[in-house]
């Protein structure tokens, strides 16, 4: 899984941080999304997907990647 955020679309709602605080944060000054990790560990995948679904600005995408051969 790879997470992509669009800071220009973000409306600083913070819903992503409420949903997946290990993956997202907000800038102090304007609340715009900050991605803490592009590739969240497996146990955070559901929360991360939920954050993408709930984002009221559609500023988060989750690209589900096929595991490369040899990758853990």
């Amino acid at each position, binding site marked *: 899984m790879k997470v992509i955020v669009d800071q220009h679309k973000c409306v600083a709602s913070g819903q992503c941080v409420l949903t997946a605080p290990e993956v997202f944060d907000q800038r102090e000054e304007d609340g715009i999304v900050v991605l803490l990790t592009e590739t969240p560990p497996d146990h955070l995948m559901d929360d991360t997907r939920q954050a993408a679904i*709930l984002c009221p600005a559609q500023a988060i995408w989750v690209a589900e990647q096929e595991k490369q051969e040899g990758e853990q």
Partner: protein
Amino acid sequence: MKRIVIVGVSAAGLTAAETLRRRGWDGHLTLIGDEPHPPYDRPPLSKQILTGDWPAERAVLRSPQDLARLEADLHLGQPATALDVAGRRVHLGGGESIGFDGLIIATGVVPRRLPGSDLAGVHVLRTLDDALALRAALLTGPRVVVVGAGFLGTEVAAAARTMGLEVTVVEPEPVPVRRPFGERIGALVADLHRAHGTRLRCGIPARRLRSAGGRVTGVELGDGTALPADLVVLALGATPATGWLTGSGLRLADGVVCDACCRAAPGIYAAGDVASWPNPHFGTRIRLEHRMNATEQAIAAAGNLLGDATPFAPVPYFWTDQYDTKIQAYGVFPPDADLRVISGDPSNGRFTAAYGHQGVVVGVLGWNAPRELRTLRRLVVERARWTAVTDAGPCPPPTVDRWWQSTRPRTLGVHS
């Protein structure tokens, strides 16, 4: 359940469809939308689309590939015209009818208009086509009058003013956005607009439009004065798009009347702007025209259609962007709620505030304070006692008065 029909393909309808598929439901799915466009997002329409910061394509909610992945029959540009509850069929404008086992109603709202407003130069803003038409008209450099100072009216005014136009807002209430936010926050919003050169005529209703040769020439106010205008935007609120449900047997009263699980009738659910339901968190029946609610309620309604039977009890979240100011809020805001500033300073353009009603915190608001507001959400979730807020700091309890009429310069009056 083999066939589900979703009427309305904006944020709520689209989310309902995606929820059904994500939950593994693999039956026959039909989506019906009255607009010709693929699903797009509405909040940018009164902001980035209007100012031209974004091209229209940027408001599109899903790529063609993502839409195709839904494996749904997509009927665009076809309004639903009638519902046969007993026969389990939706009738479309083109004469076709589509059968269903399960139905989700997500038809949203339609803008209110003034009588006699079918004139050149008069605009409403709900759809992408509305926004593009309004933007094209704004680019001709008109004198603009916005009738109505709710979120939509104030956002349109801010966008038009940002484009350098002469803008006047007319509002019967004494301050803008009074219904969502109350008088004191409304007065701050008024100050914000004045500081950007937008004229406000609050406390006077618009009586009628003036026109010549089928084109609007101005807005006549309740006191008889007239505001000249080349372009008038009607932002008078909206009514639930339930005309097609008249005679269906579904209960309609300010929207589709649902139970706590968003259910209007067996196998029939509603979500988004069109749905009215009792919110167990606040113990009141509500209907929300908030972007966040469209998503959350669609997820809930689709899940309940699949058998969840879970009451939908969200803490509402909504926001408005005006000029460089972002106002965000959680909760509900009864008109007689008390307001107290929690942090920051309204005169500095950055603060948070809480709303108390019947002894508990029912809402929190952030003015250019997104990160801090998020941490205050728990006050609403936990129904914190109002005394916990009022006892917390040195501020005296706010008074509910007509303080906006007091002499300038304005302060919130809670930092004495």
